[in-house]
Every structure is written in C-alpha cells, then in structure tokens.
C-alpha cells in the first residue's frame, strides 16, 4: 500500500512537460477524476485489483498512445533512473558505507523481489538502502514494460485513434544529450542543474509503469491541477523506485526482463544495464527523429518489428510528417528488409486510423495525395539537380587518389563556380538582357589584344558600366517600362545580399558540423586510426597512405614517449626571436609590396601618357601577379627558420600571412581607385576601374596557368630527375585556396563596374579545374600528413567571408554613398551620388498612394537610424545571451565528462567489491560452480559476459552469505 501510495504521489509530479499540451488529457482526466481517493484503502494484496479498474482502462486508451508517441522515450527510458539515485544526498554517505555494494545492488533488492511487504519500508525516504536500491529497480521497470507489451491486450491498443493528435514536440538535441549524460550524475554535480533536468528525467520513467497498470490517466490528474513547484529531485529518487517495484509485482519472468532490457538499450548492446552500457546518449538516437532506435542486433527481421521496441518505433513514426518519417526510417541502422517492412507497417497503421477523430483529420487524409505528388516532384527535381552536378567522376578519381584533403580544394572551387553561375544568371537576366535590347552599334575596332587588356573594343559593350543607359527602357507603346538605373543598383544589391546570406549559412553549417567541440581536441592518435579515408580507392594511393599513416603513428608515438622535453632558456629565446623576426619580415614585405603597388599605380597614369601602346596597361597587373606568385613562396620558406611544433600552427600562420598580403594589396588598390581614379575627373572612371579589375583577374589566371604548367611541371622534373631526394611535391592546398579567394574578391568588387565579370570568373574557374586536375595527376603525390580538411574548409569559408566579402561590401558602400558618378556615361550619369537614384525613386513613389507602404518601409526601417540602433542592440543582446549559454554548456560538458570518468571508476570499484563478495560466497558454498565461471577476468577480458548479469547472479546469492 505504501508503495502504491507513494507511486501515486510521485506521479503527482508536475513535471510532465510533454503531457501538458496533449489534447486527450482530458479524457483520462475526466474519467479518473476521483481516482486519487481510491488508492487510500488499498494495500499490497489489493493492488492487482486496481489494475482492472474500469476507469483506468478508459484512461489507458487515451494515454497509452501518448506515451508511445513520446519521441524521447527510447532514449530516456534506459537512462533516467540512475541520475536521481546517485544524485541523492545520501549517496556519498553510502559510498563510505562498507556495505555499499551490498546496499546498492545486493540483498535488499533481491529480497524485495520475493517479498512484497518489503516494498513498504522502501518507501521511507530516509531508509538507508532505498537509495542504493533505486538503482536497480530502474532498469527493471523498463524491462518490465516491454514485457507487458507482449500482453495481447496491449497489442490492441497500439492501433490507436488518438495517436495522430499526439505529435509531441521533440526535445531539443542538446537537452537529450544532456539528459543522457545525466545518467552519470554524481554527488558533486551542481544542484541547480539537477533541478533543471529532473523534469525530463523523471517524466520519462512514468511511462513504463503507466502502461503496465493502466492507471496512468488517473495519476495524471494532479498534473493538471498543480502548476509549478518542481519537487526536489531526491523526492523522486525515493518515490520512483517504489512505484516501479510496486508495479512490477513479480509478474514477469526473469527471462523477459533480461531480453527486454537488451531491447531497451537504443543502440542494442547485448550487455544490458551494465554500468558503462546504460549510458546511452539519446542525442545519437536522433535529434529530430525520435523513432530512431538503434535496436538490438540480436533480433532480426520481422521479429524485431514485432518486438516491443519495434512497435514503439512504429507508433512513434505514425504521427510524423511523411518527410520526417522517411528520414527516420532511413536513419535506422537496420537491413533493407526491416526498413521496408517498417515502412509498410507504418503506412498500414496510418491508413487504418479511423477518420473523423478530429475535424482536421479528414483534411489531412485529403491532403496526403497532394503531399505524395509534391514529394515525387521534389525527388525528381533533386534527381535532375544531381544529374547536372559537375565533375562527379573526376572528383571521385581525385578523392580516390589523393584523399579528402585535396578533394576539399576542388570542392571549394566547384562551390565558387556555382556561386558565380548564380551571380551571372542574376546580372545577365536583369541588367544585360534589357541593355542588349537597346544597344547601340559599336564602332570600335576589334584587334584581339582586347582579351588581355579589356580595353578598346570592350569598353563599348555590355561588359562595362559605362555602356549602360540611364534611360527608362520601353518597348512599344504602353509596354512595361524598365528603369535601368534602379535595375542596375538593385541587381547588384540583391546579388550581394544573396551572396552574403548563402555565405553566412554555409559558414554556419560548416561550423556546426566541424567545430562541435573544438576545445576538447587532443592530439588524437585515435583519430588517425578510426578516420581511415574510405574514399581512397587507388591501389598505390592506398599503399602510400598506409605507409604515411604508419610513419605518422610512429612520429606520434615518439612524441608521446619523449613528451615535454623542456627547452632551455636560450632555445626558447632563439625560437621567440625567430618567430618575431619572421613576423617582422613578413609584415615588412607585405607593407613594402603595398607601397610599391600604390606608387606604381599612381605613376602608371603618367607612364601611360608617354607610352601609347595598348599593352602598357598590363604593367600594373603583371607586377601584382608577380608579387602574388613570389611572396607566398618566400613566406613558406620561413618555416625553415621558424620550426613550429605543430604542423597545424604552421599552416594557420602561413594562411594568415598570405591573406594579409593579398587583402592589403587589394585594399591599397581599392584606395587608389576610389580616392585617385574616381576623383581625377577622368571621363567614365567606372569603366577604367572595371578594366583594371578585369586585367588583374586575367593576369592572375594566366599566372596560375603558367604556374601549373611550368612551375609545377619543372618542379616534378627536378624532383624526379635531378635531385631525387626531393621527390614529388605535395599539393599546397592553402596557397591554392587563397588564390581562389583572391580572385573571388576581385570579382565581387568588379561586379558593380563590370557586370560580366562573374561570367569571366566562371570560365576561368572552369578551365582552372581541368588544369589543376591534370597538373595534380601528373605532378603531385598524395599528402603525407593527415589533414584536418573539414576544419580547413570551414576556415577558408570564414576567410572568404570575413576579410574578403566584408571588405567588398565596405568598398561598394563607399562607392555608392560617397562618390560622384561620371557625368557622361553609365546608368547614373548626371547624379550627384549613386544612391541618389534610390532617393528620387522613393520621392516618386511617395506621390503614388498605392505604393506608400514601400515609402513607409524605406523611411522607417531602411532609412531610419533608430531602427538600426534598436536592431543592433537586440542582436547584441541575443548574441550575448547565446554566448553565455555556450559558456554554460562548456562548463556542463566538462562536468559531465568528469562524471563519466567518475562513473567508470565507480563501476570498477563496484566490480571489485562484487569480486570480494563472490570470493566470500565461494568459500561459503564451494559447490556452486556457475558463479565461478563468471570470474573477474572473464568479465573484463571476455566481454561477452554482461556485467549486470554477473552482478545479478551475485545479488541473488547474496542473502545466503
């Protein structure tokens, strides 16, 4: 009775966050309204009768599916029992208790199973053994629960009309994660966090029991009446095991328990409930696909689907949308046969559901065919997209020969190409096509040198800003008019905005995937071993990779062996000086280059006046490209002096120096263009800038081609024939990627002055891909070091975003807001500022009443300083909050990590204790051979012996000791 009452009390727990929203609450609630009175007179012997309580049956029908649909069920089921118990204040005390092992898993527990009256005393919160025992009933209860599923009565209720209304929101992934780790909750864990967690933890254990004795609806009653006041967790710690023990009632044979416990473990270990094993991380079970149970491998095929877990999975799949369902099914680690059956069963169950349970349900049925058609259309669209995905085969070959790291360069190139295709499509359709319809005849002569200089004939084509008209294009009478000014500024603007967001999102995605937990990075010999590159398929590449890997492992080992050799002061000083000198020299070189470029550019105009040949304009781009070619090589020679301990540091420092050089050169050129060219009063300065950028881009392209064909080729000849000790070179991913970033920056700046630039970049990238591919195949060998390619790509995109794209935005903003467009050419001719076109457009709109909303938006949002001030403030606040949350999570992760370690120690301690007990017992009754078989060595070495089983056998024997 006591147990039962307690059980009830614990279900009064207000913490059923998932339940509060569910509609069908009320059913169970209404029917079982007066239920809490009834358990009063009940005692243990009466307890079974409450099971057949009529109203509880009613409540079951409504609530049962709810718990089935509870997405986290699978994950939380195996976890939640432990945290509370070990979190209990009594825990440390009992650890000091010499009988600890006993109280935890021993005699009390075993006897409680046979003696129902023993349950009562367990209910006392201060009973010393209760806490210890609470550990074990936990697993029992859920073992118990699947057993009940085999009950035919329950099978009926699985097909439940209410299921669809029960789409419980998922727990956020982080929460899951957290919860699971909580399993290892230990005494020193911060209290506040305990409470924060406890709702989830203790919400979960209820379901098994509830399904068992069908009075769940009644016990839910108080949930509705009580609103807040989270109970201290130790209360639950006491209540919970009792409830479970009470329900367990010894009905279910041991075999089912064991079996079902195996199934309860989402990732399917055959060692149920072993301490290390119970730590099941629901985050892995799936952040958003609740039904993802990584089931027991022992069960197969249809058996699995009929198993409680399979049924649970099916039930959880039913309320999902078809997209989520497919995703969940796909993510099942099961064979195709099982997945297909699962899919079939879910579809069948879904179609079986009676209609009209809820009003909108009919609509859902009606819409399903539309959804299906939509899905088919989408899949065929994605097929179409994948069929045009470029270079699939080439990439496969590259990956097969050179591994993922080199592949990342080519993927980056392809990504940039897609970017440029997009920009080109936008500019082409909104600026170039309208302009072509009103194009005037080009009178300039075409010589062919224009391809290099970009001047001459090309100045009067759609290529450059100066060619575009400032008039409104109108075809025929009454046709729609097209304002070129607005089209120009909006197209470029929209292009940049879309680029901004796609960069931002891809950067965020990469960060999320690749910097999940960067601060726990260790040198990671484990990663070397488990991250074998499966993409590599070429035989010689595999051999080389194996060789490289063994070298790397050896290096790693030798590092570990002679760890922390302290450098002497002199050596440290020398190293510091070397670093300092390298930095000073590299910065000095970069500054010198910038100064040189600036003076060259300034004097270039005078030089051009003297030299009238059209080829003379190529001097500046030539010098810039020479700098870009030579200086990075100089930088990479610094490594001979600097000697970084970690190759990763070396790569990052090299990247930083190179990007500094390239960006400062572009920066100084921008300064020159905007402050000297634009203000010099030249006719059509925008076109001049466009031509300069075109030349820079083209010269860069020519240099890369030459570098690939000559430089790399020569290097191979030298390496192979002349100085064989050098061997083949490795592909320098960092330098090559920086070249791409440099070119892309130029393209972004140039799009405003030369709208065809994306097309040119498209062509160059396309050619570059093949050139680099051929050069790679001929001149290079696979990289010898394991590269952290994924993080590098993230870093590249960050570089592309931060100095490059933001710099472009600044430059263009200055151009548009500060500079005066040239008077006689281009779409903005005659205006005092580029932005003036927008101002006058707004003025025109404000005269038309139907467009007042645009004006309002402009005045109050886009043009308003206050709006941006408030927006910035809000963003800052949110950022700060998120930052704080992240910091908190970091601390949490650290604590939880410590807990895992402690729990491991705890486990070992327990096992030792048990071994001692075992020995004692052996001495007591030497005839028992079965225990002997499960010796300690057996457990540790022959892993097939499940710890818990071993422990349990001792527990049962314990009373005899």
């Amino acid at each position, binding site marked *: 009775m006591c147990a039962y009452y307690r059980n009830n009390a614990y279900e009064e727990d207000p913490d059923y966050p998932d339940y509060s929203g569910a509609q069908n609450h009320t059913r169970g609630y209404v029917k079982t309204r007066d239920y809490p009175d009834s358990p009063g007179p009940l005692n243990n012997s009466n307890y079974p009768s409450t099971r057949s309580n009529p109203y509880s049956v009613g409540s079951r029908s409504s609530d049962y599916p709810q718990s089935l649909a509870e997405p986290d069920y699978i994950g939380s089921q195996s976890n939640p029992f432990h945290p509370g118990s070990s979190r209990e204040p009594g825990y440390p005390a009992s650890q000091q208790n010499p009988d600890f092992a006993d109280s935890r898993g021993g005699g009390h527990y075993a006897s409680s199973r046979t003696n129902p009256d023993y349950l009562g005393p367990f209910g006392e919160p201060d009973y010393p053994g209760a806490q210890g025992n609470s550990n074990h009933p936990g697993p029992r209860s859920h073992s118990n629960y699947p057993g009940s599923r085999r009950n035919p009565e329950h099978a009926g209720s699985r097909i439940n009309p209410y299921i669809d209304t029960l789409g419980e929101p998922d727990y956020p992934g982080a929460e899951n994660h957290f919860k699971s780790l909580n399993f290892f909750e230990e005494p020193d864990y911060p209290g506040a966090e305990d409470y924060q967690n406890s709702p989830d933890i203790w919400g979960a254990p209820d379901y098994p029991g509830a399904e068992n004795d069908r009075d769940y609806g009644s016990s839910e009653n108080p949930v509705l009446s009580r609103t807040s006041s989270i109970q201290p967790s130790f209360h639950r710690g006491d209540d919970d095991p009792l409830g479970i023990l009470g329900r367990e009632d010894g009905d279910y044979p041991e075999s089912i328990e064991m079996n079902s416990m195996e199934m309860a473990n989402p990732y*399917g*270990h055959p*060692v149920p409930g072993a*301490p*290390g094993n119970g*730590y099941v*991380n629901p985050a*892995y079970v*799936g952040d958003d696909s609740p039904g993802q149970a990584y089931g027991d*491998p022992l069960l197969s095929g249809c058996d699995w689907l009929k198993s409680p877990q399979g049924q649970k999975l099916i039930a959880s799949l039913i309320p999902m949308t078809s997209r989520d369902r497919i995703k969940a099914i*796909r*993510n099942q*680690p099961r*064979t*195709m*046969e099982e*997945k*297909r059956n699962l899919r*079939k069963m879910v579809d069948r169950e879904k179609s079986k559901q009676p209609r009209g349970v809820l009003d909108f349900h009919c609509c859902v049925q009606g819409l399903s065919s539309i959804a299906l058609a939509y899905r088919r259309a989408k*899949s065929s669209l994605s*097929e179409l997209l*994948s069929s045009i995905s470029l270079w*699939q085969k080439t*990439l496969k070959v590259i990956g097969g020969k050179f*591994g*993922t790291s080199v592949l990342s360069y080519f993927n980056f190139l392809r990504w940039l190409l897609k970017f440029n295709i997009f920009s080109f499509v936008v500019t082409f359709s909104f600026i170039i096509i309208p302009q072509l319809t009103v194009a005037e005849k080009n009178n300039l002569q075409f010589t062919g040198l224009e391809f290099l200089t970009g001047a001459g004939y090309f100045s009067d084509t759609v290529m450059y800003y100066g060619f575009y008209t400032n008039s409104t294009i109108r075809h025929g009478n009454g046709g729609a008019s097209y304002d070129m000014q607005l089209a120009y500024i909006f197209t470029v603007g929209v292009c940049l905005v879309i680029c901004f967001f796609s960069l931002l999102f891809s950067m965020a995605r990469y960060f999320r995937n690749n910097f999940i*937990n960067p601060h726990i990075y*260790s040198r*990671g*010999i*484990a*990663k070397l*071993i*488990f*991250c*074998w*590159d*499966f*993409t590599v*398929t070429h035989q010689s590449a*595999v*051999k080389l990779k*194996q*060789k490289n*890997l*063994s070298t790397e*492992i*050896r290096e790693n*080992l030798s590092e570990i062996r002679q760890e922390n050799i302290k450098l002497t002061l002199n050596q440290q000083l020398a190293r510091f000086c070397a670093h300092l000198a390298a930095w000073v020299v590299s910065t000095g070189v970069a500054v010198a280059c910038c100064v040189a470029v600036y003076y060259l550019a300034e004097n270039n105009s005078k030089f051009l006046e003297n030299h009238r040949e059209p080829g003379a304009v190529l001097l500046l781009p030539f010098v810039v490209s020479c700098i870009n070619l030579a200086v990075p090589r100089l930088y990479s020679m610094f490594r001979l002096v600097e000697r970084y301990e970690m190759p990763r540091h070396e790569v990052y420092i090299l990247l930083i120096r190179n990007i500094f050089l390239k960006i400062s050169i572009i920066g100084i050129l921008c300064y020159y263009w905007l402050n000297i060219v634009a203000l010099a009063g030249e006719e059509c300065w925008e076109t001049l800038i466009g031509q300069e950028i075109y030349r820079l881009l083209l010269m860069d392209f020519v240099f890369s081609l030459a570098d690939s064909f000559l430089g790399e080729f020569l290097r191979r000849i030298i390496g192979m024939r002349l100085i064989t000790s050098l061997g083949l070179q490795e592909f320098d991913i960092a330098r090559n990627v920086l070249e791409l970033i440099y070119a892309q920056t130029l393209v972004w700046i140039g799009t405003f002055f030369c709208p065809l630039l994306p097309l040119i970049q498209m062509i160059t990238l396309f050619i570059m891909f093949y050139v680099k591919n051929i050069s790679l195949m001929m001149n290079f060998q696979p990289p010898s070091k*394991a590269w*952290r*390619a*994924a993080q590098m790509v993230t870093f590249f995109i960050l570089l592309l975003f931060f100095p490059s794209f933001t710099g472009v935005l600044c430059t263009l903003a200055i151009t548009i807001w500060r500079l005066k467009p040239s008077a006689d050419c281009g779409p903005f001719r005659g205006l005092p500022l580029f932005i003036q076109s927008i101002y006058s457009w707004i003025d025109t709109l404000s005269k038309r009443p139907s467009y007042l909303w645009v004006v309002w938006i402009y005045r109050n949002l886009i043009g308003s300083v206050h709006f941006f001030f408030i927006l910035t403030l809000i963003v800052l606040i949110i950022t700060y909050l998120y930052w704080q949350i992240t910091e908190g999570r970091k601390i949490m992760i650290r604590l939880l990590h410590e807990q*895992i*370690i402690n*729990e*491991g120690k705890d486990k*070992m301690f327990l096992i030792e204790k048990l071994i001692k007990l075992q020995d004692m017992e052996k001495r007591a009754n030497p005839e028992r051979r079965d225990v002997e078989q499960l010796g300690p060595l057996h457990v*540790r070495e022959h*892993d097939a012996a499940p710890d818990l089983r071993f422990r349990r056998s001792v527990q049962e024997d314990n009373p005899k000791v």
Partner: protein
Amino acid sequence: MGNKHTVFTHEQLEAYQDCTFFTRKEIMRLYYRYQDLAPQLVPLDYTSCPDVKVPYELIGTMPELKDNPFRQRIAQVFSEDGDGHMTLDNFLDMFSVMSEMAPRDLKAYYAFKIYDFNNDDYICAWDLEQTVTKLTRGELNAEEVSLVCEKVLDEADGDHDGRLSLEDFQNMILRAPDFLSTFHIRI
C-alpha cells in the same frame, strides 16, 4: 525510362528511395553495378524479389572496395549472415550508409561495427590491434602496435573499462570532424 521499370516495380523503387539516401537514378546505377558483378547470377527482373546473393569474392572485386583494407569487414557487417555474401538489399544498404547524405550517427554506428572485429559490441584491445595492422600493413612492430592500442584506449575510453563502447566511439568521432567526409565511398 522504360527499361527501369522492368527491373523494379514502381512501389519497389519508391520503397528503396524511402529506405536509402539515394535517388531513383542512383538506385538504378547501383543495381547495374550489382548486376555487373555477377551477370549470370543476378536477374534482370527484380519485380518478384528473387533471393539472390552475390558472393563476397565478387563483391570484393569492386574497384571501390578492392583496395580498401576493411573490405571484408564492410561486407561482413552489411551482409545478412555476416559471411560477406550480399543481396541487392544489403548492397544498397551498404552504399547508402557510406553515401554523403547519411548522418553522422548512422555512419558512426556502422563504423563501430566494422572496427569491432569479434562482434562483441565493444572495441577491445584485440580489435584495435587488428585495425592497426590492417591500416599500416604490418609496418609497425608488435610493441608499437600495443602502444598505439594503449594510447587509443587511453584517449577514447571515457569510462575506463578498458574497451571502447559504442558511446565512447561516437564521442571520439564527434571530435574528428573529418570522419563524415572520410567514411564515405563514392559510387
């Protein structure tokens, strides 16, 4: 297009699409790859779900697997009976898990199984030794191998039970962002 639907029924294709990370076209491509492995064995008509298995000896000759040191383990893990002989379903399963789209958890689960040579659901020192030997082609001596195994266990074994459970493994994989891109076989 017409040819496609003589191999599979519409429902079959749809089921495959829902159960793998592949598009219809990729499924067909994989089917033809599978068929090419054993043209006499694999029928051109799958509408009646024939029970056909391609032996491991043929699966292992695929260029994608031929030089992979773990090819046998991969085939064993994905085959129904653990002997490496694969049905079309197993074959599709294998490449689905190894495809680009498969999520980290799924990949980690199967990677764990691949590295778990003795199928005891733990990666123990013996499994690690096997892995290291396969990876380095026996270039390291026994002492080095055991040192490596010790280091790996030291690094990745969260609960210090002397072996890696699936959770330890997944936790370690989380720290290796390259895993997603390297545990990938292009077809």
